[in-house]
Protein backbone atom coordinates (compact mmCIF):
# COMPACT_ATOMS: atom_id res chain seq x y z
CA UNK A 1 0.00 0.00 0.00
CA UNK A 2 2.74 2.37 1.04
CA UNK A 3 4.74 1.35 -2.01
CA UNK A 4 1.73 1.91 -4.22
CA UNK A 5 1.28 5.38 -2.74
CA UNK A 6 4.95 6.21 -3.28
CA UNK A 7 4.72 5.10 -6.90
CA UNK A 8 1.57 7.15 -7.35
CA UNK A 9 3.25 10.23 -5.85
CA UNK A 10 6.38 9.76 -7.92
CA UNK A 11 4.20 9.40 -11.00
CA UNK A 12 2.41 12.65 -10.18
CA UNK A 13 5.68 14.55 -9.85
CA UNK A 14 7.04 13.14 -13.09
CA UNK A 15 3.81 13.98 -14.86
CA UNK A 16 3.98 17.67 -13.92
CA UNK A 17 4.39 19.85 -16.98
CA UNK A 18 7.92 21.10 -17.51
CA UNK A 19 7.05 24.71 -16.72
CA UNK A 20 5.64 23.83 -13.30
CA UNK A 21 9.09 22.56 -12.34
CA UNK A 22 10.89 25.37 -14.08
CA UNK A 23 12.38 26.72 -10.86
CA UNK A 24 15.00 23.99 -11.31
CA UNK A 25 16.67 24.18 -14.69
CA UNK A 26 20.08 22.57 -14.32
CA UNK A 27 22.28 22.44 -17.40
CA UNK A 28 21.68 19.02 -19.02
CA UNK A 29 24.64 16.71 -18.41
CA UNK A 30 25.27 16.16 -22.12
CA UNK A 31 25.91 19.87 -22.78
CA UNK A 32 28.94 20.18 -25.07
CA UNK A 33 31.82 22.27 -23.71
CA UNK A 34 31.21 24.64 -26.63
CA UNK A 35 27.78 25.56 -25.23
CA UNK A 36 29.27 27.13 -22.11
CA UNK A 37 32.29 28.55 -23.96
CA UNK A 38 30.44 30.10 -26.91
CA UNK A 39 26.92 30.95 -25.67
CA UNK A 40 28.06 31.49 -22.10
CA UNK A 41 30.76 33.91 -23.26
CA UNK A 42 28.26 36.76 -23.63
CA UNK A 43 25.20 35.69 -21.65
CA UNK A 44 24.01 33.08 -19.21
CA UNK A 45 23.96 29.76 -21.08
CA UNK A 46 20.17 29.63 -21.17
CA UNK A 47 18.32 26.42 -20.30
CA UNK A 48 17.37 24.73 -23.61
CA UNK A 49 13.89 24.00 -22.19
CA UNK A 50 12.96 27.69 -22.48
CA UNK A 51 12.31 27.58 -26.26
CA UNK A 52 10.93 25.03 -28.72
CA UNK A 53 13.04 23.08 -31.22
CA UNK A 54 11.97 25.18 -34.26
CA UNK A 55 12.84 28.32 -32.24
CA UNK A 56 16.33 27.08 -31.43
CA UNK A 57 16.85 26.06 -35.06
CA UNK A 58 15.94 29.59 -36.12
CA UNK A 59 18.26 31.11 -33.50
CA UNK A 60 21.12 28.89 -34.65
CA UNK A 61 20.42 29.63 -38.33
CA UNK A 62 20.71 33.40 -37.80
CA UNK A 63 23.82 33.76 -35.62
CA UNK A 64 25.21 36.44 -37.93
CA UNK A 65 22.42 38.71 -36.68
CA UNK A 66 22.05 37.54 -33.10
CA UNK A 67 19.92 40.23 -31.43
CA UNK A 68 22.11 42.98 -32.81
CA UNK A 69 25.42 41.12 -32.63
CA UNK A 70 27.35 38.86 -34.97
CA UNK A 71 27.75 35.63 -33.02
CA UNK A 72 28.84 33.49 -35.97
CA UNK A 73 30.44 30.13 -35.19
CA UNK A 74 32.36 27.50 -37.09
CA UNK A 75 29.86 25.13 -38.70
CA UNK A 76 30.97 22.11 -36.64
CA UNK A 77 30.46 23.99 -33.36
CA UNK A 78 27.20 25.50 -34.57
CA UNK A 79 25.78 22.07 -35.38
CA UNK A 80 26.94 20.61 -32.07
CA UNK A 81 25.24 23.35 -30.05
CA UNK A 82 22.10 23.26 -32.16
CA UNK A 83 21.75 19.48 -31.70
CA UNK A 84 22.08 19.90 -27.93
CA UNK A 85 19.47 22.69 -27.78
CA UNK A 86 17.01 20.75 -29.94
CA UNK A 87 17.51 17.59 -27.86
CA UNK A 88 16.36 19.39 -24.72
CA UNK A 89 13.93 21.87 -26.25
CA UNK A 90 10.42 22.51 -24.96
CA UNK A 91 7.51 20.92 -26.79
CA UNK A 92 4.63 23.11 -25.63
CA UNK A 93 3.27 26.00 -27.63
CA UNK A 94 3.45 28.43 -24.73
CA UNK A 95 7.26 28.00 -24.82
CA UNK A 96 7.38 29.30 -28.38
CA UNK A 97 9.12 32.68 -28.65
CA UNK A 98 7.97 35.70 -30.64
CA UNK A 99 10.43 37.66 -32.78
CA UNK A 100 12.97 36.80 -35.46
CA UNK A 101 15.15 35.29 -34.20
CA UNK A 102 12.68 34.21 -31.50
CA UNK A 103 13.31 35.41 -27.95
CA UNK A 104 12.93 33.21 -24.89
CA UNK A 105 11.81 36.34 -23.03
CA UNK A 106 8.84 36.56 -25.39
CA UNK A 107 7.16 33.24 -24.79
CA UNK A 108 3.69 33.12 -23.27
CA UNK A 109 5.21 31.21 -20.34
CA UNK A 110 8.02 33.73 -19.66
CA UNK A 111 5.67 36.69 -19.85
CA UNK A 112 3.25 35.07 -17.42
CA UNK A 113 6.01 34.05 -14.97
CA UNK A 114 7.34 37.63 -14.92
CA UNK A 115 4.03 39.52 -14.97
CA UNK A 116 4.55 40.89 -11.45
CA UNK A 117 8.03 42.27 -12.09
CA UNK A 118 7.75 46.08 -11.95
CA UNK A 119 8.86 48.10 -14.98
CA UNK A 120 11.44 49.89 -12.83
CA UNK A 121 13.24 46.59 -12.19
CA UNK A 122 13.56 45.87 -15.93
CA UNK A 123 15.00 49.35 -16.50
CA UNK A 124 17.50 49.16 -13.64
CA UNK A 125 21.07 49.88 -14.75
CA UNK A 126 22.32 46.65 -13.20
CA UNK A 127 19.67 44.59 -14.99
CA UNK A 128 20.12 46.16 -18.45
CA UNK A 129 18.11 43.48 -20.21
CA UNK A 130 15.56 40.71 -19.68
CA UNK A 131 18.37 38.48 -20.96
CA UNK A 132 20.20 39.03 -17.67
CA UNK A 133 18.55 36.26 -15.59
CA UNK A 134 21.25 36.42 -12.92
CA UNK A 135 20.42 40.06 -12.12
CA UNK A 136 17.46 38.89 -10.02
CA UNK A 137 17.73 35.08 -9.94
CA UNK A 138 20.75 34.99 -7.67
CA UNK A 139 21.44 31.29 -8.32
CA UNK A 140 20.68 31.28 -12.05
CA UNK A 141 24.29 30.36 -12.81
CA UNK A 142 23.66 27.13 -10.90
CA UNK A 143 20.42 26.48 -12.79
CA UNK A 144 18.18 27.38 -9.86
CA UNK A 145 15.31 29.85 -10.23
CA UNK A 146 13.40 29.33 -6.98
CA UNK A 147 11.21 32.12 -5.69
CA UNK A 148 13.09 32.59 -2.44
CA UNK A 149 16.33 33.20 -4.35
CA UNK A 150 14.92 36.17 -6.26
CA UNK A 151 16.27 39.57 -5.26
CA UNK A 152 14.93 42.49 -7.30
CA UNK A 153 17.59 45.20 -7.76
CA UNK A 154 15.38 47.87 -6.13
CA UNK A 155 15.33 46.03 -2.82
CA UNK A 156 19.09 45.51 -2.63
Amino acid at each position, binding site marked *: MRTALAILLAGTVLALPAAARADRLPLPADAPASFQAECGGCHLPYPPALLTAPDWQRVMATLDRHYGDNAGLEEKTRREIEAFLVRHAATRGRMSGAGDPPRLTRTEWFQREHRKVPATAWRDAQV*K*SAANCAACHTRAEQGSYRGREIVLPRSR
Partner: protein
Amino acid sequence: MKASALLLALLAAATAAAAATPRELADAYAAEAARQSPGFKPSPQRGAGFYATRFAVSDKMPACTSCHTDSPAQPGQHAVTGKAIKPLAPRAEAARFTDPAKVEKWFRRNCTEVLGRECSAAEKADFIRFVTEGL
Protein backbone atom coordinates in the same frame (compact mmCIF):
# COMPACT_ATOMS: atom_id res chain seq x y z
CA MET B 1 45.64 36.84 -42.75
CA LYS B 2 48.05 34.07 -43.72
CA ALA B 3 50.52 35.44 -41.17
CA SER B 4 47.80 35.32 -38.52
CA ALA B 5 47.05 31.69 -39.27
CA LEU B 6 50.77 30.88 -39.17
CA LEU B 7 51.14 32.69 -35.87
CA LEU B 8 48.22 30.81 -34.42
CA ALA B 9 49.59 27.48 -35.63
CA LEU B 10 53.01 28.26 -34.18
CA LEU B 11 51.51 29.36 -30.89
CA ALA B 12 49.29 26.30 -30.74
CA ALA B 13 52.23 23.99 -31.44
CA ALA B 14 54.45 25.76 -28.92
CA THR B 15 51.79 25.66 -26.26
CA ALA B 16 50.20 22.27 -26.81
CA ALA B 17 51.47 21.04 -23.43
CA ALA B 18 51.41 24.25 -21.42
CA ALA B 19 49.47 27.47 -21.80
CA ALA B 20 51.23 30.56 -23.12
CA THR B 21 52.04 33.53 -20.94
CA PRO B 22 50.57 36.94 -21.79
CA ARG B 23 54.08 38.15 -22.59
CA GLU B 24 54.67 35.31 -25.06
CA LEU B 25 51.39 36.18 -26.78
CA ALA B 26 52.27 39.87 -26.92
CA ASP B 27 55.74 39.01 -28.28
CA ALA B 28 54.28 36.80 -31.00
CA TYR B 29 51.90 39.56 -32.13
CA ALA B 30 54.78 42.07 -31.96
CA ALA B 31 56.92 39.82 -34.16
CA GLU B 32 54.11 39.59 -36.70
CA ALA B 33 53.66 43.37 -36.60
CA ALA B 34 57.41 43.86 -37.13
CA ARG B 35 57.27 41.70 -40.25
CA GLN B 36 54.51 43.92 -41.62
CA SER B 37 56.15 47.14 -40.52
CA PRO B 38 59.89 46.82 -39.76
CA GLY B 39 61.01 48.52 -36.56
CA PHE B 40 57.68 48.03 -34.78
CA LYS B 41 58.02 48.07 -30.98
CA PRO B 42 54.98 47.33 -28.78
CA SER B 43 53.87 50.14 -26.50
CA PRO B 44 51.67 49.90 -23.38
CA GLN B 45 51.01 53.65 -23.75
CA ARG B 46 49.62 53.18 -27.27
CA GLY B 47 47.60 50.23 -25.93
CA ALA B 48 46.12 52.49 -23.22
CA GLY B 49 45.10 55.04 -25.83
CA PHE B 50 43.51 52.34 -27.95
CA TYR B 51 41.65 50.93 -24.92
CA ALA B 52 40.17 54.35 -24.12
CA THR B 53 39.28 55.31 -27.70
CA ARG B 54 35.60 55.77 -28.54
CA PHE B 55 35.40 54.20 -31.97
CA ALA B 56 31.64 54.81 -31.94
CA VAL B 57 30.94 52.21 -34.63
CA SER B 58 28.41 50.50 -32.38
CA ASP B 59 25.81 52.42 -30.37
CA LYS B 60 25.83 50.08 -27.41
CA MET B 61 29.53 49.24 -27.52
CA PRO B 62 31.36 52.38 -28.66
CA ALA B 63 34.63 51.45 -26.88
CA CYS B 64 36.49 48.66 -25.06
CA THR B 65 35.47 50.47 -21.87
CA SER B 66 31.75 49.97 -22.63
CA CYS B 67 32.00 46.46 -21.20
CA HIS B 68 35.43 46.33 -19.57
CA THR B 69 35.20 49.64 -17.61
CA ASP B 70 37.91 52.34 -17.55
CA SER B 71 40.33 49.94 -15.88
CA PRO B 72 41.11 46.46 -17.24
CA ALA B 73 41.84 45.35 -13.66
CA GLN B 74 38.19 45.90 -12.68
CA PRO B 75 35.35 43.45 -13.30
CA GLY B 76 33.13 44.50 -16.19
CA GLN B 77 29.58 43.98 -17.40
CA HIS B 78 28.34 43.13 -20.90
CA ALA B 79 26.73 46.34 -22.19
CA VAL B 80 23.79 44.51 -23.77
CA THR B 81 23.13 41.35 -21.77
CA GLY B 82 24.36 42.57 -18.38
CA LYS B 83 26.47 39.45 -17.86
CA ALA B 84 29.31 39.87 -15.37
CA ILE B 85 32.74 39.92 -17.05
CA LYS B 86 35.90 39.02 -15.16
CA PRO B 87 38.76 41.53 -15.24
CA LEU B 88 40.87 41.54 -18.42
CA ALA B 89 44.15 42.16 -16.59
CA PRO B 90 46.11 38.97 -15.82
CA ARG B 91 47.16 40.51 -12.48
CA ALA B 92 43.47 40.40 -11.49
CA GLU B 93 42.42 37.27 -13.42
CA ALA B 94 45.32 34.84 -13.96
CA ALA B 95 43.77 32.88 -16.86
CA ARG B 96 43.62 35.95 -19.13
CA PHE B 97 45.81 35.94 -22.27
CA THR B 98 47.06 32.39 -21.75
CA ASP B 99 45.02 30.56 -24.42
CA PRO B 100 46.06 31.68 -27.93
CA ALA B 101 42.93 30.40 -29.68
CA LYS B 102 40.65 32.07 -27.16
CA VAL B 103 42.55 35.35 -27.42
CA GLU B 104 42.27 35.30 -31.24
CA LYS B 105 38.56 34.48 -31.05
CA TRP B 106 37.76 37.37 -28.73
CA PHE B 107 39.93 39.88 -30.61
CA ARG B 108 38.10 38.89 -33.79
CA ARG B 109 34.66 39.15 -32.22
CA ASN B 110 35.18 42.29 -30.19
CA CYS B 111 37.25 44.21 -32.75
CA THR B 112 34.59 43.52 -35.38
CA GLU B 113 31.91 44.74 -32.99
CA VAL B 114 33.67 47.81 -31.59
CA LEU B 115 35.98 48.93 -34.43
CA GLY B 116 33.97 47.53 -37.33
CA ARG B 117 37.06 45.63 -38.54
CA GLU B 118 39.63 43.13 -37.31
CA CYS B 119 42.49 44.49 -35.21
CA SER B 120 46.05 44.50 -36.54
CA ALA B 121 48.85 42.49 -34.96
CA ALA B 122 50.36 45.80 -33.80
CA GLU B 123 47.16 46.80 -32.02
CA LYS B 124 46.93 43.39 -30.36
CA ALA B 125 50.54 43.55 -29.15
CA ASP B 126 50.02 47.05 -27.69
CA PHE B 127 46.72 46.03 -26.13
CA ILE B 128 48.12 42.96 -24.35
CA ARG B 129 51.12 44.94 -23.09
CA PHE B 130 48.77 47.58 -21.66
CA VAL B 131 46.32 45.26 -19.93
CA THR B 132 49.20 43.15 -18.60
CA GLU B 133 51.46 45.90 -17.33
CA GLY B 134 49.16 48.86 -16.92
CA LEU B 135 50.87 52.21 -17.29
